[in-house]
Structure formats: structure tokens, C-alpha cells
């Protein structure tokens, strides 16, 4: 059995999480493979919630599978697809089945996904969602009714340390911290300085919040250009692009893994943050290589 | 008006140009009908549409050269309206190319004749094609 994520966060060590992306369909075989491969190598497995507004197998379903397989799931919840009633009901269910970690997110717009004509909900925003989880934790619903058993969730959220302008972002982070979060997993970051600045900001407000820097390996010059162009809040520095350009053909993935591992080592050795959250979308099976190269297993 | 080409001519530019063409005895198509307007900007989309409803097969809006409009922006407005009219005609499954806007100066009778003939001939050809 894995250690509860909350206990891990309380300890001194470097925290490592990664994610399992649900498939588009009822098949869970791929997810099970990834769970088996990763569950003992990391402290928590995030499960994305209709990521990028693409309809998929539910986050909660995969979280239950992770529990069954002895891993520690982090349930990602966005505000896009469910109103406050549905979110609360889902959280009660998740808790009753042993899920103990929730990552509170806004969610992407339906405009970027594969159901562009869907009604997007956003009944709540991510700050309100954090408050909601705490309310359930106190055995009440957010309408003030008493519950026949509350929840006991460890609460996390996300942040974008590379946003420009950064001030409005930081005000939002401040509100999230005030609402009460145990950990923050950041958007992909590539500059140590940026993470450092962000960590300082958060620690200044609340020392107990653990910060896991987002790691997304860049495996090609094209991918870098695409991300810089199209993924708001991510800035890939030129030196990374240059290093990739110099790598021999066909070694992009290996190079990406190498650079990510190097970054993780630095973050750990220089104690820049408390851990990392590795997102290697579509290449989950290669996450162990990053962990090995970074000396985390 | 059946089969005619209607030319809305600004009295500061196209109309004097047409007048001069007449005085110089330059020849242009008989199917052209000239309507004198105080400014190309005075011609509204509905005027152009009504011309087609009455059976015109093409409409020309002729205004002053860029920067020379007596009412400052009449010619640019006219161009916008002609473009809008092209869309409206296409929407009604008529040919948007049947309406056109040109800028002309009062002392350019040859240009007047060329523009008129070009549109008339183009429409004649397209009629044959149909």
C-alpha cells in the first residue's frame, strides 16, 4: 500500500507526482499498464479531468482503478463540466471509495476541445472550488446543510508562474492559499529563477504549502515552437531550443528526458521547490526513464 | 431599365468626365444609363439593389479619386457599400460581380469610357456564357 499523499507532504523529502491520462473510450487497459508501471515510483498519480476539454473516460474512474491497484490517486476536478451540486456529489463518492487528494482547477474552455457546442458550466471557479472542498471536509455542503459524514481531502491546485502579466495571477494564487491548499502543482516551467520567485512568493504567505514544479519534457524544436506559440502561460527558453536543435536526428525524446532530468536534479539539489509534477502526455511509459536519470528511483 | 447598366455618377468627377466624353464624341455602350448624384457616398445599398430589381444587369458607382472627394469620405463609403452590395447579391444567388466601384477624376473622359465598356462587355460575355 502506498503512503497517503498528505503524509508525504508533511515529510521533508522531495515529492514526485506524475499523471495518468484517461483514454477516449471505455477501455482502461492502457491506464492500468501505466498505473502498474508508475504507482510505486512516484508519490501520487494525477488523473486528468476531460483534459483540454476533450471528452474521455472519467478522472474518478481511473482514480478508483489506481486505488484498486494500490496507488495513490490525485483526483483532478475542473469547474467546466459540473455545477456545484454535481461536484459535491462526485467528491462524496470519491471520498467514500478512498480517494483522498483533490486538485482544484478552473478547466479549459470548451472552445479548445472536441465538443465545442457544449454548454460550459463554470458555476464555480477554482478558488470557490477550494472553499467547497474545505466545506465538505467540515461535514457540511456549501448550502450549509449538515452531511451524514464529511470528507477528509488533501487539497491542491495549479498555478502559472510564467504568466505575463504575473500580478493578476499572483493575486489569484494568494486567494487560493488563503482558501487553504496543501500543495500547488505548477504549469510547465523551464527557468529555475521563475520557480524560485514563485516559491518565495508562496512561502512568504504560507510556509506549509508544498510546491511541485511542472515538468513537461520538450522533445523537438517543432514542439517547442508550437508550445511557445499556442500554450498560454508556457515559455520555452531559446537555450532549450538550441540544445534540441543540436541533438542528432531521432534522439529528441532522449534529449527531452535528459534535459528534464537535469532540471529536476537542480531543483532538488538547490532546494528551489518541494518536488516536481511530471507531465509526459502520450509517453507515460517513459516517465521512469526521467525518474532514473534524475536519480529519483 | 431592363438589361441596362446603371452608372451612379458623382457630379464632381464622373459626371463631368461623362459629359466631356460626350462632347469629345467618344463612343460608349448605349445600354449605359447615367444617374447624376451629388456624391458617390449618397448612393446607398438599397439604391443599387432597387436598380437590379428594376431589371438592371449591372451597376456602377463612380466617385472622385482617393483623397479628392468633395465630401471627404464619400468615395470610401461608397466603396464599402458596393462591397456590401456584392455580398448581398451573392447571398440572393445573383452575381456579386455585377456591381462595381471606380474612382475617376473629372478630366478623364477616356477612363470613363474604358470603365463603362469593360463592365458592359464583361456582363455581355457572362450573359453569353449562361
Amino acid at each position: 500500500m502506498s503512503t497517503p499523499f498528505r503524509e508525504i507532504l508533511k515529510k521533508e523529502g522531495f515529492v514526485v507526482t506524475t499523471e495518468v491520462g484517461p483514454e477516449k473510450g471505455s477501455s482502461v487497459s492502457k491506464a492500468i499498464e501505466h498505473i502498474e508501471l508508475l504507482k510505486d515510483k512516484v508519490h501520487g498519480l494525477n488523473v486528468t479531468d476531460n483534459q483540454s476539454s476533450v471528452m474521455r473516460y472519467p478522472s474518478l474512474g481511473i482514480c478508483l482503478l489506481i486505488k484498486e491497484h494500490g496507488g495513490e490517486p490525485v483526483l483532478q476536478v475542473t469547474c467546466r463540466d459540473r455545477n456545484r451540486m454535481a461536484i459535491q456529489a462526485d467528491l462524496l463518492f470519491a471520498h467514500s471509495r478512498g480517494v483522498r487528494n483533490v486538485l482544484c482547477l478552473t478547466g479549459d474552455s470548451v472552445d479548445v476541445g472536441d465538443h465545442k457546442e457544449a454548454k460550459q458550466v463554470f458555476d464555480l471557479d477554482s478558488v470557490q472550488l477550494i472553499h467547497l472542498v474545505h466545506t465538505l471536509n467540515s461535514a457540511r455542503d456549501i448550502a450549509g446543510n449538515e452531511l451524514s459524514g464529511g470528507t477528509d481531502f488533501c487539497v491542491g491546485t495549479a498555478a502559472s508562474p510564467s504568466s505575463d502579466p504575473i500580478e493578476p495571477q499572483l493575486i489569484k494564487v494568494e486567494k487560493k492559499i488563503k482558501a487553504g491548499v496543501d500543495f500547488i502543482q505548477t504549469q510547465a516551467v523551464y527557468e529555475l529563477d521563475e520557480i524560485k520567485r514563485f516559491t518565495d512568493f508562496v512561502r512568504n504567505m504560507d510556509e506549509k504549502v508544498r510546491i511541485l514544479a511542472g515538468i513537461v519534457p520538450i522533445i523537438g524544436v517543432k514542439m517547442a515552437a508550437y508550445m511557445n506559440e499556442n500554450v498560454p502561460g508556457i515559455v520555452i527558453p531559446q537555450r532549450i531550443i538550441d540544445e534540441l536543435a543540436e541533438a542528432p536526428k531521432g534522439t529528441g525524446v532522449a534529449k527531452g528526458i535528459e534535459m528534464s532530468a537535469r532540471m529536476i536534479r537542480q531543483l532538488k539539489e538547490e532546494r528551489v521547490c518541494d518536488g516536481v509534477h511530471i507531465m509526459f502526455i502520450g509517453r507515460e511509459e517513459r516517465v521512469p526513464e526521467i525518474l532514473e536519470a534524475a536519480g529519483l528511483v | 431599365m431592363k438589361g441596362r447598366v446603371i452608372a451612379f455618377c458623382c457630379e464632381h468627377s464622373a459626371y463631368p468626365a461623362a459629359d466631356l466624353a460626350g462632347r469629345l464624341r467618344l463612343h460608349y455602350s448605349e445600354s449605359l444609363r447615367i444617374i447624376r448624384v451629388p456624391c458617390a457616398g449618397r448612393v446607398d445599398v438599397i439604391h443599387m439593389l432597387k436598380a437590379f430589381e428594376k431589371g438592371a444587369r449591372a451597376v456602377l458607382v463612380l466617385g472622385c479619386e482617393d483623397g479628392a472627394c468633395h465630401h471627404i469620405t464619400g468615395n470610401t463609403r461608397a466603396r464599402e457599400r458596393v462591397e456590401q452590395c456584392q455580398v448581398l447579391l451573392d447571398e440572393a444567388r445573383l452575381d456579386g460581380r455585377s456591381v462595381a466601384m471606380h474612382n475617376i477624376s473629372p478630366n478623364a473622359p477616356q477612363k470613363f469610357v474604358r470603365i463603362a465598356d469593360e463592365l458592359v462587355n464583361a456582363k455581355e460575355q457572362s450573359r453569353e456564357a449562361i
Partner: protein
Amino acid sequence: MIIAERKPMEEIEESVAEYKKVLVAGCGTCVTVCWAGGEKEVGILASQLRLARGAAGNEIVTLETTVERQCEKEMVTEIKDKVAEADAVLSLACGSGVQTMAELFDDKPVLPAVNTTFIGMPEREGLWVEMCGACGDCFLDRTGGVCPMVRCAKGLLNGPCGGTRKGGMCEIDPDKDCAWVLVHRRLEKQGRLDLMREYVTPKNFRAVRRPGKVQAAKA
């Protein structure tokens, strides 16, 4: 004011396909100002219909009228004779106008020729932008006069999402300012940034019980 946009010609044509005599009815208020359904647009649409149907050898007779406010029964009553003459009414008013007309002349098909889109203002000539979501629970006092309910693509109430683009543009539309960057700028300028730091509780989405009803206080 209320902003609307004319429906595609095809859709309008299809809706009146079976009628020979149609009253094209505009409204002199909001839709006139946003160039969607005033007297001018009535003339253009009627002409287009005549041209299109004429070319197809299926002539249509159009009557044209523009009521000062199509959402007021008294004003709409004035055109009852014209309505009586037509097989159907094609209304270029907002949904409210179309329904007033439909209620008043309930023996006639009243068909919409515009799509009513939002409450907004002109940003520049010919361009209108959404400003108000008519939520019935205005909190512009807390946001520097910028409504994130409608001007943020996700209607977020406590600050920006993580997607704001470089330079403060919205994640889903690089041509649109992120509403929360606007709120921030405005409040910063006024020295009231603390307002943005205050937690905004979940919105009362039932402040207006649908369908909405407002009773004026007696003067």
C-alpha cells in the same frame, strides 16, 4: 443595448419559402443602432428576398414596416392592418420583439430574421461587444466596472485562469483582452487592488428566477 445579428440569408429564405406575401418588420430601437433590424435593413432584406425569389421564378410580395419599439404592444398594434394583409411576418427585432408580435397576432406565423446575441456596446463603428449578462446580481462595484461574468470567457469571479496570454490577452481569443487583466489594471489605477484580493463567494445564479419579472416600485 440589445445586440443582434441578421440570420444567414438561406435560413431566412427557407423560413418564408411557403409564403407569397410577407410583412418584413423592423424595430426602431436597439437593432436599428446595431445595424441588424432597422428601417434600412428591412429595405435591404425585402429587396434581397424579391431578387432571390424573382430569379427563382417564385415571386414574393413584401410589405415593409418599422415599429418604433417592437417589444411594446401598443406600438405593435398600430401595424395590425399590414399584418392582416400578409401570410407571415418576418421580424427583424430582438427575441423580445418577435415574441410581442407573435403574441399579439397569434393567428399568424411570426418568424425571426435576426439572432439576438447579447447586451453590449459599440466598441468602434460596426463592432459591438458584450458587456452585461443580465444576471440580476450586479457586482461591478467590486471589479472596477468590468464584468468578468461575460467579459471573461469562463465567467470566473476570483481572478484569471492560468491561460492568460502574453500581454494580457484571453486564452481563447488572442484579440480579446483578458477580463481579469482589465480588472487588475483598473483597480490598480484607482488604488483599490485590495478589492481584487477579496474572496468572491459562489454566484447566486438564481437572482433572477427564470422567466424574469420586475415590478416597478410605485411612484
